[in-house]
């Protein structure tokens, strides 16, 4: 916690803002470390649920009780503008909240990055009616935000989506299959991408707020994924069958959806970097504790140079990851374009999380491979970080193209 505070002190926050940030982070730390961390193993073992008969999804036991506490503590309102029942606080603070949540449980922290991405896209590109309707719901947490971009044949190449949107009267009707929806089926808003003009290819895509209540039977969860990690979080496959989306839920202009979505992902990538710093921090702390208590060859293994140097590398990578995400978030607060920096932060932090959780298992030896120890879960959970919200390879593509273009 002190590491975050120290970095915050280097930013240009006013005295009052510093105090607010500190109090909010203290509260989140307490919630994460007293309550969320206690449930994290149970959630991993129980996993999310899907009932094929009713097509209903649900989170593991107790997760929604803690989600409600986050609502009561107004956590989702942090970055929402004051006009829409929020507090208009900084993205820097928001990402630090994500790190603290991810320290306790990566699965639980999944509620946060997608919420802010939904808030940001709707606030920046939504119609007045959509903002009035959805921003207060997302701010209070009464609506969970989900992203419906990926399709079976459209992953890294998001422009290959085939879900079509047909305008009839005052509504669009969306038909297609969407996969990898975090919170799919439980979400109140789904930001979706669909084809509005097939002849224009990638320039014929539009973005929408799909509201399951309006879409009704047109929005149906087909299954949820059995994953390697993140068992507590819902990852759904959703079938859209003439799902109704009112015209006012169109985001930006028709046929400009791809640019809008790609442009917005830069900010959520900072959140994924924050998650990575959080899970890596926990892997580091678990390793330090274990290395200090495990005695081999007559002394704690942390005193053997082989292990102590591993700990040093881990600490260095965690610190770098934290600096990168906080610094990029602060740049964003200052109104800078962070397209490249967000990708750098996401690429570095998520890869660091792989290395740190891998080494954490190594330091724990045989125990690290056992389910009894937390590092086993951390290792499984962390694996997804270099994949979702743009793979490491996509980040490198963005970084390389961006820096080369900058040089020209």
């Amino acid at each position, binding site marked *: 916690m002190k590491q975050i505070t120290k970095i915050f002190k280097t930013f240009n926050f006013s005295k*009052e803002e510093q*105090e607010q940030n500190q109090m909010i982070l203290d509260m989140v730390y307490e919630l994460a470390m007293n309550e969320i961390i206690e449930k994290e193993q149970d959630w991993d073992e129980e996993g999310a649920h899907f009932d094929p008969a009713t097509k209903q999804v649900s989170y593991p036991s107790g997760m929604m009780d803690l989600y409600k506490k986050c609502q009561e503590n107004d956590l989702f309102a942090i970055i929402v503008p004051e006009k829409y029942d929020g*507090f208009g606080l900084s993205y820097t603070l928001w990402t630090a909240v994500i790190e603290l949540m991810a320290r306790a449980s990566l699965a639980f922290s999944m509620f946060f990055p997608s919420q802010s991405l939904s808030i940001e896209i709707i606030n920046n590109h939504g119609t007045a009616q959509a903002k009035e309707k959805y921003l207060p719901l997302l701010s209070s947490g009464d609506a969970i935000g989900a992203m419906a971009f990926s399709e079976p044949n459209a992953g890294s190449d998001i422009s290959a989506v085939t879900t079509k949107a047909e305008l009839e009267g005052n509504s669009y009707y969306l038909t297609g299959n969407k996969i990898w929806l975090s919170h799919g089926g439980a979400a109140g808003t789904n930001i979706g991408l669909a084809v509005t003009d097939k002849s224009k290819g990638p320039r014929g895509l539009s973005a929408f707020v799909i509201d399951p209540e309006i879409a009704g039977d047109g929005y149906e969860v087909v299954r949820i994924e059995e994953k390697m990690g993140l068992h507590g979080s819902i990852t759904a496959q959703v079938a859209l069958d003439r799902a109704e989306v009112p015209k006012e839920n169109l985001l930006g202009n028709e046929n400009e959806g791809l640019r809008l979505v790609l442009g917005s992902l830069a900010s959520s990538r900072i959140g994924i970097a924050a998650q990575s710093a959080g899970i890596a921090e926990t892997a580091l702390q678990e390793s330090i504790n274990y290395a200090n208590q495990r005695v081999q060859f007559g002394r704690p293994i942390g005193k053997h140079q082989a292990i102590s140097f591993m700990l040093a590398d881990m600490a260095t990578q965690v610190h770098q990851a934290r600096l990168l995400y906080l610094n990029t978030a602060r740049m964003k607060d200052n109104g800078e374009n962070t397209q490249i920096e967000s990708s750098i932060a996401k690429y570095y932090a998520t890869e660091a999380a792989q290395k740190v959780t891998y080494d954490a298992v190594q330091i724990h030896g045989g125990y690290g491979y056992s389910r009894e120890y937390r590092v086993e879960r951390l290792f499984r959970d962390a694996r997804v970080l270099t994949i979702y919200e743009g793979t490491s390879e996509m980040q490198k593509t963005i970084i390389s193209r961006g820096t080369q273009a900058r040089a020209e």
Partner: protein
Amino acid sequence: MNIIVFIKATIDRNAPLGPDETFPGDRDDKADVMTNNYDKHAIEAALQIVEKKGDGKVTAVCLGSDMADKVVKEAIAMGCHEAFRIENSEARVINFFSVAKILAAAIKKIGTYDLILFGMQSYDYGTATMAPMVSEFLDLPTASWVERISLNGDKINVEKVIEGGTRTIELQLPAVLSIASSGDFEEPRYTSVRRIMKASRTKVPVWEIDKLEAGALDTNVEFTKIEQPPARMEECVVFKDDDVPVLIDNLLSALKDKGLNLGAYK
């Protein structure tokens, strides 16, 4: 229903001890200060009572240096209606008897109150003496380690923890209570972003000790030393017997030999 809650700024439980420290004492690093954990239960009790009653206010009071402003603001961020600090820079007054006199004088200055709440003890010195001492100075009824409170006109019924159970007693209001960390107030509420924003904009009024008419702050208690209890060496004994009743009998008689009170067991 007007409730006064006394809160204390103590050293953060997670703050590491210095190499020569057995007790963190009075540090001057702001980051190391936190609200005495037990006091949060008292705040929770006060807020629950006022919410249930539908009217009244909760006033949090803290004796401390400007380091304690953080604690006072946290009280507001938890939901207290108002809060102030009594200036005690450089821990001028630390002996409990004098502290109790000051708190009693502050209560008199506030004037209107129905209940005065304390946490059951402090996280640092942990003497659990403040509530009874203050009640003596004000000549008010008191109960310690209260788990449950029900209002009954100008009286209250409280359940307080005693060894092996609870005891229900009736007190005439106003009264002084110390709140247990179990029972109805076991889970103090968190601060919320909304209330934190309010708290950060609140200017904490500061009162001077000298203007409180607390009387002579003489030193009736003196600290001579704080030390850790010596480490005790105990032998680990493993009882082995296939016959379970015999095994239990062996265990119990060994405990009895150690001087443990086993009640009916002879």
